[in-house]
């Protein structure tokens, strides 16, 4: 239980500064595969900046819940980011059992995003809300199983310790379990951030979309907040995957930071590769894949139980 000002500052700086870059890297990777130049690296920064300066258009049907969606969607990833370590830089906030709080924070964001989508009274947004809550519901057991494996290996119930210094040693003793967990958490990152193969963030065909269709009616600063929040969510969940993939520390803080940033960019490239080489799954196959992922993470736990 500790709060360190330096860590807090670093966390917020990394989160606010670096998170929109991931989307740029993904875009560039996809452009490379398609043989295009693609949007600039900093496109999302421009977008967010421009949207923050614009006016709002509100539907006549909507109420305060519609406005609450972006607010919660921005506040939640920021708070969640403070609970996890970025690379070997420890979490500014940590307490025993914070992983439960972490998971339910994202539940809060989901709750309000879905309610805000339904508040427009449009069938499209309703469709997105349904898919979001259903798929995330199936992804939740996976996260819990993954966390319980890490808790078992580290002997602690706080995210900071679970993704902390013991992780490197755990790779020696329980590599198979951790590898499975890595795959599962990567899948969860994809589904929670609505990337291919679960959702296509590019298409504007309502039938294929989840997240994009939910925010169809938001505009101006609200849309900017949503884009920023989504980028941060990707950053936060991605940070867990990267930490799992790059455990340990080099000893110097600068090097660790660079390593972490490099890891995040690599993750973005991987996501870009996945998006370029895979097709979106059929909608009814998605629950199957998610159940498969939870069973896989449960199996990795069984490996440890012996």
């Amino acid at each position, binding site marked *: 239980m500790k709060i360190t000002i330096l860590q807090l500052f670093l966390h917020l700086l990394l989160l606010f500064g670096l998170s929109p870059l991931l989307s740029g890297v993904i875009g560039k990777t996809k452009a490379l595969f398609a043989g295009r130049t693609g949007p600039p690296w900093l496109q999302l920064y421009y977008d967010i900046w421009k949207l923050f300066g614009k006016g709002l258009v509100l539907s006549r049907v909507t109420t305060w819940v519609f406005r609450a969606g972006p607010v919660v969607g921005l506040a939640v990833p920021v708070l969640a980011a403070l609970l996890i370590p970025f690379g070997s830089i420890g979490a500014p906030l940590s307490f025993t059992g914070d992983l439960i709080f972490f998971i339910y924070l994202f539940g809060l964001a989901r709750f309000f995003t879905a309610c805000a989508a339904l508040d427009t009274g449009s069938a499209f947004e309703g469709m997105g809300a349904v898919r979001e809550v259903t798929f995330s519901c199936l992804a939740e057991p996976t996260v819990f199983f993954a966390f319980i494996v890490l808790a078992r290996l580290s002997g602690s119930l706080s995210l900071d310790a679970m993704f902390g210094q013991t992780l490197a040693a755990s790779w020696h003793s329980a590599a*198979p379990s951790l590898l*499975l967990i890595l795959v599962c958490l990567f899948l969860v990152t994809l589904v929670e951030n609505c990337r291919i193969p679960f959702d296509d963030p590019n298409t504007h065909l309502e039938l294929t979309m989840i997240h994009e269709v939910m925010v169809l009616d938001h505009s101006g600063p609200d849309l900017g907040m949503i884009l920023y929040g989504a980028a941060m969510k990707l950053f936060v969940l991605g940070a867990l995957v990267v930490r799992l993939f790059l455990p340990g520390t080099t000893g110097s803080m600068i090097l660790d930071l660079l390593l972490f940033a490099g890891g995040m960019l690599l993750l973005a490239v991987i996501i870009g590769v996945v998006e370029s080489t895979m097709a979106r799954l059929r909608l009814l196959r998605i*629950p*199957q894949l998610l159940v498969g992922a939870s*069973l896989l993470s*449960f199996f990795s736990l*069984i490996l440890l139980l*012996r």
Partner: protein
Amino acid sequence: MDNTVNFLLLLVILLNFFILGSSRLVSCIRTVAIQGGMLSLLPVLAHGFSGHTLFLAAGAFLLKGIAIPFLLFKAIRQVRIRREVEPLIGYVPTLILGTLATAGSFIFSDRLPLIAEHSQSLFVPVGLATLATGFLMLITRRKAITQALGYLIFENGIFVFGMLLTEAMPLMVETGVLLDLLVAVFVMAIVMHQINREFSTMNIDKLSSLKE
């Protein structure tokens, strides 16, 4: 060496899950072939290079990795089966059952009075889990070709078990098992061909009308 073996065995289990969750016949066959091919590395990895293990590995690789999948591919091309697997109880329930069976085999093998050097290795639980997967495949899938796949997975499980005994087991027994399998697949392929010609479907449900 031990780590590599364990890793291989783990992959075998992952492939089990994949087979249970996959809806495409072709990818199922390919996965079983990969599984067989991987297993054929096991004798060498687990017991070191020797004439015995090399022969076993080569035989298993040829049969499980190449010959039988080739036969099965040929069979589905000949009878032009649709790509779907047609499960009886759905993919997600089979997956859940598969996980439960795997968990059960892990827990059960912990309780077995094994000798010390085997009690830590993954051979027994993975063998049991693969057997269970084979059974599940046999029970829950509708097509004759998936039955053949079930037998193959079943045999893979036995093969994993056999690894514990390779030193002790005479070569002839192993060879016999492998040959049996080959013959079984041959028979299956021929039967399938005949069924297809008679009923123009591969559904083994139809066979139940043969009862009195």
